[in-house]
């Protein structure tokens, strides 16, 4: 395709705008990176030493050796992956029903499910806390995981419905003729064929859960149960600038797994989010 001069100019304008946007998001991360490789002395120099004179990896080494940090990361892995698996497992049958069955009020139900996603966690924080308290589920990873699952289900239902929609209906018919029940047809035909969608939904949940803060913050008060997000917040609020460089290193390390997953698997995530957008 031949592009006109005006179009190329427009392209450059878009790139420039995107660069500004990217900087707005990247600067805090770069600042974090800068702090994480400084010595304690250089932390006090502030922005004047954006690139430190004596960069050190010592902070990372100290954080990684710290038993507390290891426990926070492990808690995060556990909560995030169990929450993601639970959300996918529970959303799948619902998404299948929405994909395959016709019933009155289906459109309204789907919008209702989506609208749950629009409610900010902050709005329901206090009732949620009291609710979980009554159930005796506070201070436990089990209760926390249940909330992670609940938070992930709405968007997962939508994602999976799109994946199931992409599996041809005639395969359901063929399976019915071959004598399979609905459940068997779901398990043996639809699920395996929607596997890429299931995986993307799982990964997306994993990333969202990795950065989850509000739920564990209200649910867990014991240090040994915290995921990394809560731990960092608590330390940032309680310690002096003497440990800023350590905190920065911990933050950076905490971001890395989510970032790595995203970079490695972004193709799948993007595929899941845009599936069904165009007819192939």
């Amino acid at each position, binding site marked *: 395709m031949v592009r006109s001069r005006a179009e190329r100019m427009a392209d450059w304008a878009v790139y420039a705008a995107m660069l500004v946007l990217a900087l707005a998001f990247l600067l805090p991360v770069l600042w974090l990176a800068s702090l994480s490789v400084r010595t304690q002395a250089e932390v006090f120099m502030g922005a004047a030493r954006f690139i430190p004179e004596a960069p050190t990896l010592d902070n990372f080494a100290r954080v990684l050796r710290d038993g507390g940090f290891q426990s926070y990361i492990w808690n995060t892995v556990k909560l995030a992956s169990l929450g993601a698996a639970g959300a996918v497992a529970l959303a799948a049958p619902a998404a299948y029903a929405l994909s395959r069955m016709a019933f009155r009020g289906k459109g309204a139900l789907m919008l209702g499910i989506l609208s749950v996603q629009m409610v900010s966690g902050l709005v329901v924080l206090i009732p949620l806390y009291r609710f979980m308290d009554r159930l005796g589920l506070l201070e436990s990873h089990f209760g926390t995981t249940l909330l992670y699952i609940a938070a992930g289900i709405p968007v997962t239902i939508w994602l999976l419905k799109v994946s199931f929609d992409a599996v041809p209906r*005639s395969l359901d018919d*063929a399976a019915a003729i071959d004598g399979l029940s609905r459940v068997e047809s779901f398990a043996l035909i639809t699920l395996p064929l929607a596997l890429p969608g299931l995986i993307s939904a799982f990964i997306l949940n994993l990333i969202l859960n990795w950065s989850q803060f509000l739920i564990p913050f209200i649910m867990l008060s014991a240090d040994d149960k915290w995921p990394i997000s809560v731990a960092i917040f608590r330390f940032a609020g309680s310690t002096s600038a003497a440990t800023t460089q350590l905190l920065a290193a911990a933050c950076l390390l905490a971001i890395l797994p989510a970032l790595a997953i995203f970079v490695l698997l972004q193709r799948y995530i993007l595929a899941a989010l845009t599936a069904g957008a165009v007819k192939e």
Partner: protein
Amino acid sequence: MGQVELQSIHKSFGPTAVLDDINLTIADKEFVVVVGPSGCGKSTLLRVVAGLEEASSGALLFDGRAVNALSPGERNVAMVFQNYALYPHLSVATNIGFGLRRAAMSRREKRAAIERIARLLEIEPLLKRRPNALSGGQRQRVAMGRAIIRNPAVFLFDEPLSNLDARLRMQMRSEIRGLHSKLPTTTIYVTHDQIEAMTMADRVVVMNAGRIEQIGTPSQIYDTPRTTFVARFMGMPSMNMIAARYDGDALVLPDTRVPVPADWPERLAPWVGRELLLGLRPEHLSLRTSPGGVPATVDLTEPTGSETLVYLHHGDTRLAARTPPDTRLRRGDQVHLDLRLDRATLFDPDTTLALPTLPADPITKGETA
């Protein structure tokens, strides 16, 4: 072990009636082709028999036993779908053997059954492949293998050849027919292709707008259509429909009078002075070398090699004639046509039904007797 009977089957989707009072009995081992234009309800009919759709009312009997309440799996039917509907994540062998999951057979017996079917359909080398590594024709065979292996009481085909190219379609047509003579099983075959209907069927069911227009052998359908719809739908080009008035001893056309055969006046007595539709197949119009007959003007000729189709008009009436391959005519040429009235079908223009006083057709008579 495979008689299928539909008694007053109705099916509506919401307010829309898709099947309207369908009555049809298919004999054991019979090959019935259901044909009709898109949206006539033929696929829904098949899906009702399969159990994929529930009839809104009416009874469906297999060998005299009501099966309305049975699931597709319990009905012992097998179906070949238009898009084959092979399981993409399973090998050809697993696809073919999938219907045997519940069968009381050992692994080895199943394996043997799959290999026997693969030999029959000549797809043995493909057993380990996935469906996406197969050509259209091979997928079609796998789909048939999956249907055959369960030894069903009834085979259902839903436009199975419409995704294949013309040559392959012709080949598969005869293969399916050949398969039916090797494994005689009741078969309901749905298509919109009248050639498939004419060449494959023991009996043809012509459907239109949710109703059955006519049931009959291919030659009955072709030679003695019961309605103008059947007359127009079956046959390529369609049957010529010539509006004419009967005056007692001749049919009056815009520019000419065509004397009727000797036995017509007695049969057509009630029609004197009334309008009729004269239905004539293109092969029953012929070009005269001398003046007389019906004058017509040539619009278009289509030489196909084995014959030449000539499209003409007489007044407002468009006509088609099947003529020998050496016919040389140009647009605008004036010709004269002979009408073989002994092969004509007459229709009542108001009801669109063929007149009960059909001119006797010796060929059809011989077959139905």
